[in-house]
């Protein structure tokens, strides 16, 4: 072996170091492939545990180290996205809900190749996922799962008081009055959170109202449908609910029914799942029924979730490998979906009739027969503006104003003005 003298050693290492500094990348041999993934604290906590377990297997099988971080989905998650984009640093992968891919379109890598592979395997992505993540002809995030809203009620209390399970929003008012008298009011949040929008949307649609027209430009909140929606909320607030709904977070309605207070809430099945897992005394009494209808139809909110990869990530390919590992292997995807106990449902058409729906007879309502599912802002096509109207909580604030004394007309005029400002901005 040739001896390397001191002068040669210094020259070689200096050249190598200069190369590393110029390229700002470690040499291939020294590069440990590592990716980080930011997701929310799932309302079905077992699903987060399973995700971590699958992540460990992924690291073992591929040699790519995966770090999963969780964050509350309200506020903190949006702020985190914003700061990561602004600083062009942070996680490689981010979990996004609804239309967020539209809002962050310029910052998200094209993942059309990954979605094409998944669609070939499982069939087309369902419409809500397509609306949320397929931006201007490009998949900016990979459809992951969706959660469907449904009516959650205390079946035991209804039976005890011989109350009829409601079929329309008007029926809910009739039984809601009785429930309040029994000390088990209806729990629909009217505050700055997502659940408030998830209920206000279907009520508005079923009365024939909308926020923005199909053209995606014209604000249409000032309508008879909206006025009827507000009148319905006013009487519900007065006769069927308690003022606490004005301060509720996304978790509050779940807690209220779990702790034995609320008699009826509008929520995905997570309230029941948690009650069952924690063996709460209310678990047996909770059940679900079909979404409610109104004069103009029967609508429900769908909340698709997707996985995006930031463009600034230095590990786009490794990130894609993780998505393929999680969603592309049927047995792994099934395992992940099953862990969510029907809170996280598959988003590809061949998988929609998933065995998870048959794990508990109380999930029958999730079949949603005769229910039209939409994402926020419908019938306007998805856009960053629609997401901004959502993020500014204009719909729940309009209702909150009306139920606390502002006239219906003034509340609608306020919302119209706010929405027009967003559309013009």
């Amino acid at each position, binding site marked *: 072996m040739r001896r390397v003298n001191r002068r040669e050693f210094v020259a070689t290492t200096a050249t190598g170091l200069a190369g590393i500094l110029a390229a700002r990348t470690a040499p291939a041999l020294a590069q440990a492939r590592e990716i980080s993934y930011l997701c929310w604290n799932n309302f079905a906590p077992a699903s987060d545990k399973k995700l971590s377990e699958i992540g460990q297997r992924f690291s073992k099988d591929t040699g790519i180290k995966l770090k999963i971080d969780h964050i509350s989905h309200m506020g903190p998650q949006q702020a985190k996205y*914003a700061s990561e984009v*602004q600083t062009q640093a942070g996680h490689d992968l981010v979990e996004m809900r609804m239309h967020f891919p539209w809002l962050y379109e*310029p910052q998200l890598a094209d993942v059309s190749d990954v979605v094409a592979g998944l669609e070939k395997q499982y069939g087309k992505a369902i419409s809500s996922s397509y609306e949320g993540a397929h931006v201007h002809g490009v998949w900016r995030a990979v459809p992951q799962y969706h959660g469907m809203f449904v009516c959650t009620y205390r079946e035991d209390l209804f039976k005890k008081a011989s109350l009829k399970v409601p079929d329309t929003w008007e029926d809910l008012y009739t039984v809601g009055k009785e429930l309040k008298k029994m000390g088990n009011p209806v729990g629909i949040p009217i505050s700055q959170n997502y659940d408030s929008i998830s209920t206000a949307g279907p009520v508005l649609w079923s009365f024939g109202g909308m926020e923005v027209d199909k053209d995606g430009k014209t604000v249409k909140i000032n309508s008879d449908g909206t006025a009827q929606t507000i009148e319905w909320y006013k009487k519900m607030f007065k006769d069927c609910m308690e003022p*606490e709904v*004005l*301060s509720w977070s996304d978790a509050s309605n779940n807690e209220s029914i779990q702790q034995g207070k609320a008699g009826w809430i509008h929520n995905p099945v997570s309230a029941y799942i948690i009650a069952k897992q924690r063996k709460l005394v209310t678990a047996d009494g909770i059940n679900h029924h079909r979404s409610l209808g109104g004069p103009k139809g029967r609508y429900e909110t769908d909340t698709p979730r997707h996985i995006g990869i930031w463009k600034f990530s230095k590990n786009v390919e490794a990130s894609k490998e993780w998505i393929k590992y999680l969603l592309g292997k049927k047995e792994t995807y099934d395992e992940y979906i099953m862990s969510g106990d029907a809170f996280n449902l598959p988003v590809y058409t061949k998988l929609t009739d998933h065995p998870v729906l048959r794990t508990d007879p109380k999930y029958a309502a999730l079949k949603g027969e005769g229910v039209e599912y939409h994402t926020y802002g419908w019938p306007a096509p998805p856009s960053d503006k629609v997401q*901004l109207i959502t*993020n500014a909580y204009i719909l729940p604030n309009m209702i909150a104003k009306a139920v606390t004394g502002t006239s219906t007309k003034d509340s609608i005029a306020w919302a119209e003005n706010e929405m027009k400002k967003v559309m013009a901005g």
Partner: protein
Amino acid sequence: MAIGTLPAARAHARLPWRTRVREMLDRERVLGPLFITPALILIALLVAYPFCMALYFALSNAFIGRPSHFVGFRNFVNLWDADAFRQTFQNAFVFTGISVAFKLVLGISLALLLNQQLWFKRMIRGAVLLPWVIPTALSTLGWWWMFNSLYSVVNWTGISLGLLDPPGPNWLGQRHYAMAAVVTVNIWRGLPFFAITILAGLVAIPKELYEAAQADGAGPWARFWYVTLPMLKPVLAVVVLFSTIFTFSDFNIVYVLTHGGPINATHLFATYSRMIGLESGRIGEGAAVSLYLFPLLVFVVWAQLRFVRKQAY
């Protein structure tokens, strides 16, 4: 003379470097700036740079992740059209005014009490500091639990004692109650700062002044009014100044307790700025919200420091 100084300079140059450094450090002109430099660097990096960035954003139409353009004062003008902002503006003054007034009165009372000869004086003084020491987010979470409509221990106690009619007030869901709740937590959190600082001022008042006043026949109230209060004025001015700034820019309490709700009734500049800038992505407008009161606060600081200086000299 040049010829005479040359050998001395050479002799200095021959001194060992340690001695030369020691000599240099003995000079105030060198040592002073040397001590201040690290603080200046920190201020430049952690205060001046973010402040300049905020200023730049406030004058632009910056939107997260997209190119921005200079728009002058448009953000500041547009903000005034939004009733949520006008509500925030009003909230900030109500929140700060009521909180600081209560903290001042209660702080003086608590300081006078702590200045008495008490059993377990040190322990009590330590315990008073607890709300100030506990991380705000954590303690506010405890308050949130106490005010929460489902679990409210405040209502439970009030109802049990017959002071409230069931189900009791909805602390976080009704505008005035929600404001009362955030003000209460702010007073609870800020009181120790007032009490301990005023106590330090009280301890520094010479006993002779009280003895002279007593000899002149002054009662407890007269002694407080004509001796204690005038002697405390500089301390009170500084405490009120700091507290006004901290309270105006409070974030944690409102964010954890009400998120600015119901219907923006408790939003402060910091929480509203976060909602607009980070949650809605309109960074330019968000920065404008956070800088809206900057000129006013600069004036408050200037006026109060002027007052303190007058009192001191």
